[in-house]
């Protein structure tokens, strides 16, 4: 395979402007991420530490193997949303435990006592899906006050899903461990209750359906918390706990020991030596347009993500607004689809064909989304842009090889669907800080709305209030701008996290490796293609 030749001019004004702006975005990302590591604030962190407990992030660090990576999923969930904390009270991600890739979920005990918020529940659900879809053993580090009661209406009914999924995973031989460090009460008690293995920390774990006040209310029985649901009681009497740990570190060690007896993960494809890309990942900041409306060459991006910058481009001269081709990332074979402009019929057809080829050969797909949508206009409609776009969506929808989507620019309209957006269930979906997502761009959307308003006024034969219209347009534009922002998206679990563009190759490597824990075969079965 030949390496991609790069034509980037690092001295150009565009490069330097992009670099400066993107670097600023990355700094902003770092600051936002850092805000998630502070827990529920100094006061609660202090109180937690004063009780001799490890902070939830420390628990994660001490659980995973020394030197292991930890890819946090949706670290910024909840950011900017009222009544939510950045991270939504949950830390979740993929790391190595006893050499095995596991999905780890830890309650952020210093945030509302680890209570589950609305976004927190969405995040838990996503983490459960990541575990299930990729067959990753799960380890829950539990210390949670249960449902965040004031918002119970939003979480009570869907909340049952989490417990259902634990046992369904169990049935599929995907084991789960609950390590209980503190409260795990009421509904939360079913988290250990449903798990395959339960470890409880002495003098800390408290697991019961109803606490002493509720028991007193219900039956008049007076009982202390330790007798009602302490680690000792559950380890010696109720049998809910399988391992009684003297302290938190022992509990974490026990969890590691349990994982060490698991069956081996499915063998991954043999990886020969991995070539680093020929070009520096740092240059991605200068290449990717800081202004989402300015297109940029996706091959320059690919050249900085794939092994040896080698890329075997498929149908290079046909449907050129979609770049397709084969490469390797950290040794894993991949088929890459990257936008190089608006989707037209030829590029849609080419994409559908390429996805079929990758399924035939069990090659995971990487989507690099930078898409304003499908082309509109009379000529394109006549050519069958809907029919051809549908072929691509058909292929994306029915493909069974692992797919990973990275939104490196815009994600607008049906382009989001055709390029494996969230609704198309890629195994993982990450975004770059400059990324924007909406049905269409804010200017276009408000412009369209203005035209509709004017047309309506014209039909009714009334004059438009130019001032009101201008104001409406301005307000709408700013609303859409706000709502298409990458932080707005990531706060709502529309993706698995915003990443530093320079980490993309690493993150893809981790995601691909995780995907291979569930080595799904590519399919040869598709919906009816509308030819």
């Amino acid at each position, binding site marked *: 395979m030949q390496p991609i030749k790069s034509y980037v001019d690092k001295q150009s004004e565009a490069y330097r402007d992009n670099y400066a702006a993107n670097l600023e975005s990355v700094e902003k990302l770092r600051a936002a991420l850092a805000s998630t590591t502070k827990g529920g604030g100094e006061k609660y962190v202090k109180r937690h530490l004063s009780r001799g407990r490890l902070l939830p992030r420390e628990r994660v*660090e001490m659980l995973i193997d020394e*030197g292991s*990576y930890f890819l*946090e999923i949706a670290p910024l969930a909840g950011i900017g949303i009222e009544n939510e904390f950045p991270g939504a009270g949950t830390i979740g991600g993929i790391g190595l435990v006893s050499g095995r*890739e596991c999905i780890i979920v830890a309650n952020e005990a210093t945030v509302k006592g680890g209570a589950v918020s609305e976004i927190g529940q969405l995040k838990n659900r996503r983490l459960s899906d990541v575990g299930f879809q990729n067959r990753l053993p799960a380890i829950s580090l539990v210390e949670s006050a249960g449902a965040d009661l004031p918002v119970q209406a939003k979480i009570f009914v869907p909340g049952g899903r989490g417990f259902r999924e634990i046992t369904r995973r169990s049935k599929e031989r995907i084991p789960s461990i609950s390590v209980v460090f503190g409260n795990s009460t009421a509904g939360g008690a079913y988290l250990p209750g449903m798990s395959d293995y339960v470890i409880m920390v002495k003098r800390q774990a408290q697991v019961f359906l109803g606490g002493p006040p509720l028991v007193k209310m219900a039956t008049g029985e007076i009982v202390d918390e330790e007798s009602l649901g302490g680690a000792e009681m559950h380890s010696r009497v109720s049998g809910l706990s399988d391992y009684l740990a003297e302290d938190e570190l022992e509990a*974490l060690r026990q969890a590691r020991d349990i994982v060490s007896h698991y069956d081996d993960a499915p063998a991954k494809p043999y990886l020969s030596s991995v070539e680093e890309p020929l070009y520096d990942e740092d240059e991605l900041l200068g290449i990717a347009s800081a202004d989402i409306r300015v297109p940029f060459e996706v091959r320059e991006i690919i050249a900085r993500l794939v092994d040896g910058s080698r890329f075997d481009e498929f149908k290079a001269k046909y449907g050129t607004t979609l770049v397709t081709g084969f490469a390797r990332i950290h*040794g894993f074979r991949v088929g890459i689809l990257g936008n190089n402009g608006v989707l037209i019929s030829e590029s849609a057809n080419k994409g559908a064909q390429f996805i079929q080829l990758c399924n035939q050969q069990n090659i995971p797909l990487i989507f690099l989304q930078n898409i304003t949508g499908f082309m509109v206009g009379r000529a394109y409609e006549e050519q069958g842009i809907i029919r051809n776009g549908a072929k691509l969506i058909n292929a994306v929808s029915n493909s069974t090889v692992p797919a990973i989507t990275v939104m490196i620019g815009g994600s607008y309209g049906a382009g989001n669907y055709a390029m494996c957006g969230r609704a198309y269930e890629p195994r993982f979906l990450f975004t770059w800080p400059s990324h924007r997502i909406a049905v269409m761009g804010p200017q276009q959307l408000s412009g369209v709305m203005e035209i509709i308003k004017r047309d309506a006024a014209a039909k009714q034969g009334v004059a438009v209030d130019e001032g009101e219209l201008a104001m409406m347009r301005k307000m709408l534009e700013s609303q859409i701008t706000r709502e298409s922002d990458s932080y707005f998206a990531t706060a709502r679990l529309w993706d698995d996290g915003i990443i530093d563009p320079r980490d993309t190759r690493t993150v893809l490597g981790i995601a691909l490796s995780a995907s291979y824990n569930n080595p799904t075969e590519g399919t040869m079965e598709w919906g009816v293609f509308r030819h």
Partner: protein
Amino acid sequence: MRVIRACRAMGIASVAVYSDADTNSPHTRFADEAVHIGPAAAKDSYLQIEKIIEATHRTGADAIHPGYGFLAENADFAEACENSSIVFIGPTAEAIRKVGLKSAARRMMTSAGVPVVPGYDGEDQNTETLKRAAIETGLPVLIKATAGGGGKGMRIVRDAAELEEAIESAARESEKGFGDGRLLIEKYIERARHVEFQVFGDNYGNVIHLFERDCSIQRRHQKIIEESPSPAVDENLRQRMGEAALAAGREIGYSNAGTVEFILSPEGEFYFIEVNTRLQVEHPVTEMITGLDLVRLQIEIAEGKPLRLKQEDVISRGHAIEARLYAEDPDNNFLPAIGTLHDWRLPALDAGLRFDAGVEAKSEVSIYYDPMLAKVIAHGEDRETAIRKLVYGLRGLSAQGVQTNRDFLIRLLEHTDFRRGESHTSFIEDHLSELIGLRDAAFDQQAAAVAALYLQKKRHAENKTLPRIPPVYRNNPYRDPAVKFEIGGETIEVSYRHLKDDVYEVRCMDSQIEARVLSYGSGSIRLSLDGIQQWFRVVEAGDVLYVHSTAGARAITRLSRYPQRHEAAEHETANAQMPGQVLKILVAEGQRVAAGDSLIILEAMKMEQTIKATMDGFIETILVKVGDVVAPGEPLVQISAE
């Protein structure tokens, strides 16, 4: 090893003898053949004359080189060889006997005109006589065992009031150590040097000397640094002492290698002490200045050849100095140390540097034999160069797993007074505080940082999942990876941050360095620490990492991420495991029990089940009585630690 090497050079096949402890020792393997002669304890093997003679019969060996220790100065052994027609490579049994008793040797020397230390060597061993002799000699005096050696039975007395006690205890000690309680008294010369002359005689009455060795640096009356020429001996004195040594040799009718030992006073007066009738540990010093192979000379003489050198043929070139590397703890009164030499590596050999080692990596240093591991000998055009070279050689030597005197030797050799040539036999005692108990905390930290990087690099190299992603990758960094070590009883935490490629920022207590890993291999790592490139040797044995660089060496224990909790639980309850009936209660409240003690017997499912204590403590409460029916999990007995 040394002897075998000389034999090989001469085309002579060699046979080693070995005890159980030396089955796989370097000397055993180095020889062409090796004969097992008994268990580890020397008295049952290496000191068994008959077994060694028998070994020669079994292998057809026709000569024995007795080495430096064990039977090397044993006249009976030499005689046993003579009687079995085996050539003993050394002096005759008669010569050994003549000089074996210190008092007899003194008298012999006096008659030969060799100066002896003023004192008493009479047969009258009455305590009063000895006391009087000591007073007449003039305090301070040295009381020595007539039959002794190695410092045993030796006392320095400065105060007349202590004489009686010293004489009696020295006599007891020599009686016990050598089966001979006789003592001699010598004037103790303060700040004296130990200067000895290497002599060689053949069977034809020729005796030559190969110059002196200054062995003044001693601890526990044993030499650890030896050099030649002596900084205190000028040409004139050398001439006179050499003559005296030759006179001594002639008087004894000495053949083969021997050493005539003198005391040299600060005023330049020398006195005979004794003759060693064997090749000595420090002989390489002489070899390096004369360019001669002394073992070869020994063998030639034993073969009956006349000395091929005349006195004027022997020329001293440059300066040679030897340091003895011991398995011992200088900070703990030089007590011998034992253990496994997890790492043993000699630096690259440069001209003028020699290592004579009897050990290798993974050697066990046992309690059975002398704890000397190796001799390092350096030769240079002058004393300064030789010392510098020796220090360089010692710094490059990695000997770990067993406490050694390496660092002590380096400090000694670098001591200003020593460098000025101001050595004497109590040099170490006088300068002890400058030589021991020193700890370079900065190097502790550096070594810990190196260990942390080594472990990180090793993990990364062994990582099968995504070997090429950045080390310890986090998309949302929380804290830097950290590792805890214990060095010399202190806990040191090292944390590090991956900056790029192979560059890390490493923090350890109050220091912060930027480290680049330049190369990594099993057993070593090359690092650039704040821009300074260096090799570090890192050898792992269990939880211990042995880190060595030319700046020092440290044994670093990796502390577990999940420390075992030693403190016992405060309370424990012994619970029923099956439903059953209490059949018997074996303990009473307040009774002390140990973990595993039986507490209660239950009858359950027609079986007797014994409930045992799971911790040490005493019985706080017995919660059931005989006949009670209990459910599984029901607490039966409470045990309290206090």
